[in-house]
């Protein structure tokens, strides 16, 4: 009973805040609604008994990614009325993509209930909740069963990261930067010199 009530509360707020992400006038409000949506998604995961995924969702998305979103959105003063001018032009493409995603989802969920083979695979991947914790289960799937795919994904991300750094990094001249090694290496005789000044003559 309580689970059902919680599910409906989480789900309603999730969908509501998802809609508000798209429709709110202020971009910062959009991001804040996005964060609310993440929280409620985490709540749904907890209800499913997937507490590890819920916590990772909060840590990665709410704790890091959304902070960066907020950071950027607050810094850039985006004029949303300007951005919204093209809505009519992009609407057909957006709708098309939406429909394709919808159809794909229906196919996946339909395949779930219709084919026996898929159901067997799905059930084999999830051990009984009481036997192993879901941290353990996810660890086994990721790092033991599918280790090569996991490494491959990691490698792709690494390449993407290096690519992003190479593309955006630029050396600017004339910027004063602290070089701690240089500061430490400096000796006394380089820093100052003692001059014996005669009275009335100056240097």
């Amino acid at each position, binding site marked *: *009973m*309580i689970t059902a009530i919680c599910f409906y509360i989480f789900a309603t707020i999730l969908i509501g805040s998802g809609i508000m992400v798209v429709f709110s006038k202020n971009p*910062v409000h959009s991001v*804040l609604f996005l*964060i609310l949506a993440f929280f409620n998604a985490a709540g749904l995961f907890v209800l499913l008994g997937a*507490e*590890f995924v819920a*916590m*990772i969702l*909060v*840590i990665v998305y*709410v*704790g*890091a990614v959304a*902070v*960066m979103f*907020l*950071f950027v959105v*607050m*810094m850039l003063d985006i004029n949303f009325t300007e951005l919204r001018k093209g809505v009519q032009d992009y609407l057909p493409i957006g709708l098309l993509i939406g429909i394709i995603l919808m159809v794909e989802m229906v196919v996946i969920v339909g395949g779930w209930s219709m084919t026996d083979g898929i159901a067997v695979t799905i059930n084999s991947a999830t051990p009984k909740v009481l036997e192993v*914790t*879901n*941290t*353990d289960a996810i660890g086994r799937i990721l790092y033991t069963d599918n280790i090569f795919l996991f490494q491959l994904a990691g490698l792709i991300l690494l390449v993407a990261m290096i690519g992003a750094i190479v593309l955006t990094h630029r050396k600017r001249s004339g910027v004063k930067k*602290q070089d701690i090694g240089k500061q430490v290496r400096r000796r006394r005789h380089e820093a100052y010199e003692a001059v014996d000044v005669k009275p009335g003559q100056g240097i």
Partner: protein
Amino acid sequence: MGKYLDVFMNWLFGYQMSDGVILAVGTIANVLVVALPVLLAVAMIVWVDRKVWAAIQLRKGPNVVGPFGLMQSFADGLKVFLKETIIPAGANKFLFLLAPGLSLIFGLVGWAVIPFGEGMVISDLNVGILYLFAVSSLAVYGIIIAGWASNSRYAFLGAMRSAAQMVSYEVSIGLVLVTVLLCVGSLNLTDVVMAQRGISLGLFNGYFFTGLMPMFFIFFISALAETNRTPFDLPEAEEEIVAGFQIEYSSMSMALFYLGEYANIILMCGMMSILFFGGWLPIVDWKPLYAIPGVIWLFGKMFFFFFCFAWIKASVPRYRYDQLMRLGWKVFLPVSLIWVVLTSSYLVFFGKFSA
């Protein structure tokens, strides 16, 4: 807790509660049993902070209200409570008032998984460490939202600094937590404490006395940065950006920030005691010491770390911003990453992985 209440209610009114009601009432009672002392502890720890700070500067500190000035925090609380809450004209009213509340809430919810003794915990989560990590990384939202909603340049600068700082130091905190949980083999905080019993030569309780010692120092310094304490108090740096994100706040809304900040600091002290100093276990694994209740050991350790926090606040100058970023990304991140690799290789090589 709920069970005793049920017995009590039955005795008093002849009223039998259903299981759901027992669970709900019991949980609420548990939460109050932890949250109220935490708030009281915040009030007292502010006094301790000011006293330590004063002693280091050869002053007396608060000594007027109550014996030894003990009631000073309550007097301050009453004062801010009676002041007017000013909302700036250009501020986003809802978010402006939401931010201090968020900061207090995120300071308090972390206490749900802190074990005060064996079985003395509100919620013995399987993923306790992750929960704490998640909660501690959320504390930044109170500050960012406050800075943005105030519609003030200083406040906004403070918020931006805070966001960048917290995201940077979270990374090293995360890696430190990974080393600890590699050694424990579990994400449950009770398991973390129990795994530390006699860990060092069967003599000391706590990972601090093993090869994880450098990780403790990284965690301690990152905790300073996460809670915006000196030397990393750039988000509120008085001399540079006046009071940073708090600049437009007055009365109770400002006091809520302080409550949240100190609740977070005590939470961090609790995390340090649990992860590295054996939580409620005595420091030395010696039978007679177990006669002292575990709660007292835990509080003693937390108090010691808080003393260190206050000590640092009184004696260390503030970091420059680029130095702060350098320390986080170029020193702590590589060192903690290397330590993760070393720890896991050690555990694999000697077959000490506890699955």
